[in-house]
């Protein structure tokens, strides 16, 4: 696992941006230039534009279908331009398909899970990166090993546990199993190993600060950029998580992905209503990607196994 590496500052995505290398020091410039001596030719641009179109088109078409009415969607050739009914369809989806409740539920679930993941990941990541204790490496290996365990396999006992706790159909049943994330812990450990100088922690010790105080006033300010990345990526995952919420929640109290299955299960399939629901459920994440796309991209790249 020594091949894992992480740039010291994930809040500086510019270091992966080749178009403005002049901002960085000579060493960085050299590396940027040497790693990619070739400029993209016309063919590369054509292929990448094709890739972008294929990536974005299904979502664009979701919007098109959500903005027309049911009869227009079911005609050939299919519509390619938006119609006039977008907002009325979105409003219908919000009311009729329990999407309103689902959006609120998903915001709570994803928000709580992301906050708790960030907090515990920072706590554990700090310990793994900067504190000395027996069994540290073994425990870190265990954390990494847990990534290989698919949560779906334990779903039957988990369901029994939740009904015993009286949490069936309740949001805590979805929240509690995902309060922590191994990826988050590992990501934060990599980040803090490089971003947090040992001297800073030692100085805190000499001043007589206890570990929690060091965590609070020295580690947290340094960890903030990585915390933002973990928050966003966890939020996306929690918002989109499907299998377990589908098992344990029902239509009276769903999250967004659960409510979306109900949309398509009706006897009369109102296609534009279905698409309006799908669009509604995706909008919050799309908005996040448009605003923080740069940070999310650099966060995912920074957390990658390299080598």
């Amino acid at each position, binding site marked *: 696992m020594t091949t894992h590496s992480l740039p010291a500052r994930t809040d500086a995505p510019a270091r992966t941006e080749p178009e403005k290398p002049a901002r960085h020091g000579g060493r960085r410039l050299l590396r940027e230039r040497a790693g990619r001596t070739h400029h993209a030719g016309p063919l590369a641009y054509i292929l990448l534009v094709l890739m972008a179109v294929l990536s974005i088109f299904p979502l664009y078409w979701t919007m098109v279908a959500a903005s027309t009415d049911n009869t227009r969607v079911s005609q050939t050739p299919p519509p390619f331009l938006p119609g006039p009914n977008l907002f009325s369809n979105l409003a219908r989806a919000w009311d009729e398909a329990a999407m309103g409740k689902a959006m609120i539920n998903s915001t709570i679930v994803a928000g709580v899970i992301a906050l708790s993941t960030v907090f515990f990941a920072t706590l554990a990541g700090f310990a793994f990166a900067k504190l000395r204790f027996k069994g540290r490496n073994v425990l870190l290996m265990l954390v990494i090993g847990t990534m290989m365990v*698919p949560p779906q396999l334990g779903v039957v006992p988990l369901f029994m546990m939740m009904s015993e706790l009286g949490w069936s159909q309740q949001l805590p049943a979805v929240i509690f199993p995902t309060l922590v994330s191994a990826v988050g812990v590992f990501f934060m450990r990599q980040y803090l190993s490089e971003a947090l100088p040992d001297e800073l922690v030692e100085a805190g010790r000499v001043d007589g600060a206890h570990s929690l105080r060091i965590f609070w006033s020295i580690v947290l300010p340094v960890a903030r950029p990585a915390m933002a990345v973990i928050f966003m990526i966890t939020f996306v995952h929690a918002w989109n998580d499907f299998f377990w919420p589908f098992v344990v929640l029902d239509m009276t109290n769903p999250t967004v992905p659960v409510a979306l299955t109900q949309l398509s299960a009706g006897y009369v399939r109102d296609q534009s209503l279905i698409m309006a629901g799908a669009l509604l459920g995706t909008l919050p994440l799309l908005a996040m990607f448009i605003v923080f796309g740069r940070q999310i991209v650099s966060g995912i790249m920074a957390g990658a196994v390299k080598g």
Partner: protein
Amino acid sequence: MATSTTKALAGEEPPGPSRAGDGTETSRRRGAWLHRLDVKGAPYAFVAPFFVVFAAFSFYPLIYTSWISLHDVELATLDVMEWVAFDNYVELWGDSRFWNALQNTITIGIISTVPQLLMALGIAHLLNYRMRASLFFRVASLVPYATSVGAAALVFTMIFERDFGMINWGLGLVGVDPVNWEADKWPAQVAISTIVIWRWTGYNALLYLAAMQAIPADRYEAASLDGASRWQQFRHVTVPGIRSTIVFTIVLSTIGATQLFGEPLIFGQGPNGVTGGANNQYQTLGLLLYEEGWKNYQMGRSATVAWAMFMLLVLAFVAQRLIKRLRSRTS
């Protein structure tokens, strides 16, 4: 550090017992003791929440699954467990739906994973060029990743619709007869794989890109001095240079493929789609697990399917190991 504090304390100790001195000494000792406790104990306290939550909600259920699979348990009466030993496994072995689901999981897994990772490799290579708007292309490649299984599957269900779907319309323009994407086995599996490929290709491409950027430049320089063409550089420098990333993505995709659930469920039209089509033509092990537990109310059998999925995963990794060993022996 803890010991040096104790020594300092001992040295400073005033001679002769006095009431006041006694009090400070106890409090100092307590301070030192607390400090040592903090230095020794805090790291464990900091990593504990992760392990507690994982043990309670992941590890314990995983182990308990095997115990449940040896019982008959009904969904309505979860506390009544009747010991049946290996009956569930014997029944599963003789159940044609299990073999069907296993086969579908493997075929959909291959159709969705292989093109996905190859395309991701190509896209990463393109993104690695120096170019304009590189941030736009990176974010664009990640847009499907932001779309939930639900929304993605719903859109693709419509795009692959038999009568008015866009794909069949497009095929009609070039003179191909409409394909029944839902009812026919292989078209359905291709359509479901398309959803998986669409959602995960860009994400994998970014992982590859990150690894490509970490390859030392002198390897390319050496290769081009040796007269290697761009394709040769890609094959002999880039791909070996990101080998562990490739292994990592293969592992993750394999895990994802054995667990496939949402895409076939919603492609088969909502909560009624657990059978994976009228003839189970695209029922995966994930769907079978759900059907046994929450449609047929047989939690014991559901747990047995979960164990079968786990074994499949283990076998997949053993197979990968073997292939790797054979390849390294032949080359």
